[in-house]
């Protein structure tokens, strides 16, 4: 929660700075994005052993559920995008393909259009907040496993303790694998989609 608050403050300060001081923010953003992707790659490689162990124990669920999350996110973006005049349905679909990974989706889409970047960040950031707020309730109404899809990529790290606490041990294992597979696919998905749909 502390990081979430810091990020919101950074975003507001950035908006203020951008309006008042004309500097080359694009260059700063590019360098930081390269550095962040390098660190993400490093983190994934370091966690590979525990991830493969988890994947073995839950089988089909570990592959199917992340795919449903990604497809659902894309369809959701497409449907809402068709109803919003300010945004093309293609851009809306790319934005929701971030599946809650706001730190990647926002900065990456900023390289194409700053407006897409801001909406990409807010859409995916609010997905994490929504997961934190609604998972404890939804888990009772629906079921612990399908409710994991609300969190998208965040179920691997920030919302994992929540899933374990309210969904149980099995849901915790599924959530980790779910978050990992979504996190693995999202960068490639964003790359391919932006090439095909936005350029």
């Amino acid at each position, binding site marked *: 929660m502390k990081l979430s608050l810091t990020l919101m403050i950074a975003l507001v300060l950035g908006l203020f700075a951008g309006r008042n001081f004309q500097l080359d923010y694009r260059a700063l953003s590019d360098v930081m994005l390269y550095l962040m992707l390098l660190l993400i790659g490093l983190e994934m490689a370091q966690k590979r052993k525990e991830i493969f162990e988890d994947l073995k124990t839950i089988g089909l669920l570990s592959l199917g559920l992340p795919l449903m999350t990604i497809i659902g996110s894309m369809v959701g973006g497409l449907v809402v995008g068709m109803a919003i005049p300010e945004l093309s349905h293609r851009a809306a679909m790319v934005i929701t393909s971030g599946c809650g990974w706001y730190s990647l989706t926002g900065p990456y889409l900023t390289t194409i259009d700053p407006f897409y970047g801001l909406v990409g*960040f807010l859409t995916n950031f609010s997905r994490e907040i929504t997961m934190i707020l609604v998972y404890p309730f939804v888990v009772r109404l629906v079921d612990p496993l399908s409710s994991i899809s609300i969190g998208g990529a965040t179920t691997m790290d920030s919302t994992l303790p929540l899933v374990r606490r309210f969904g149980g041990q099995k849901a915790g294992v599924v959530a980790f694998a779910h978050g990992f597979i979504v996190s693995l696919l999202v960068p490639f998905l964003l790359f391919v989609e932006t090439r095909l749909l936005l350029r």
Partner: protein
Amino acid sequence: MILLLFFAIGVLIGLIVKKELKIERPLNLTLIVLVFAMGAQAGSIKVDGMRSLVISLLLMTGAVMFSMIFAYLFIKAVGGNG
């Protein structure tokens, strides 16, 4: 392409280096600067923050709802209800 290259370099370093590197702090710092720069770029083209927020909430709601529906149908189909 450059982004994928940096990602691949990171994976490669992670596979080569046996000792576990603590990257949470630099990752968070990078993220904070990145979000600042992203906000600054949006601010420099005078994006309407409130309009962006409303659009974002609508998109998030759509994405979450359809993800849940698809996931629910899948869980029912494979009988993996926990």
